[in-house]
């Protein structure tokens, strides 16, 4: 049973526009959430996180929004750049933060 879901396998966006990646979760016990970015032939790299006590966290061009009532989070990238083309995973930990569950990923293509 998938506890963290990313329902869009792929997304294409023009350079300079906003990219919005979405993630849904089912377990209300998650108390923080993370986004990872993955290039081919490399491991995922941590991008940004958000605690469940917040509804927004911003880091440069990247902003994560959390809607706890809807069990939904989203990652906004503004402006999108070709180097942002990668697979993005959302994740959340359980068991005192030690067992992480990942979504299936969204492949973002930023078109120059």
């Amino acid at each position, binding site marked *: 049973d998938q506890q963290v879901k990313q329902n869009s396998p792929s997304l294409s966006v023009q350079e300079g526009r906003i990219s919005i990646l979405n993630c849904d979760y089912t377990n209300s016990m998650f108390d923080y959430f993370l986004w990872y970015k993955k290039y081919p032939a490399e491991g995922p790299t941590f991008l940004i*996180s958000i*605690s469940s006590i917040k509804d927004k966290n911003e880091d440069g061009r990247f902003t994560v929004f959390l809607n706890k009532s809807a069990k939904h989070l989203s990652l906004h990238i503004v402006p999108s750049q070709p180097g942002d083309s990668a697979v993005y995973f959302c994740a959340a930990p359980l068991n005192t933060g030690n067992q992480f569950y*990942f979504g299936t990923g969204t492949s973002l293509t930023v078109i120059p």
Partner: protein
Amino acid sequence: DAGITQSPRHKVTETGTPVTLRCHQTENHRYMYWYRQDPGHGLRLIHYSYGVKDTDKGEVSDGYSVSRSKTEDFLLTLESATSSQTSVYFCAIKRSREDSPLHFGNGTRLTVT
């Protein structure tokens, strides 16, 4: 670079043979993890360790065993490899602080023929 080395980076093996993948960290972190990545499934936890000789199962542990005899090394063993274990395997480490993220190695691509 999070100080994680996975070896080998690529391996091809035959069905029924044992395979061991190694993860080595230089950061002295307590927590280490093995994940597999497959199309349509994302990253799934196989096993994790919260200290030397302390390990626990993840979502997809059947057919895998792990060992951690030293803080810096976490081994994943496929006792008798099957084609369904063809995958990319990632090791990750985590600081003890509760809200710390995972940091991943660059993966091992395993093909079981």
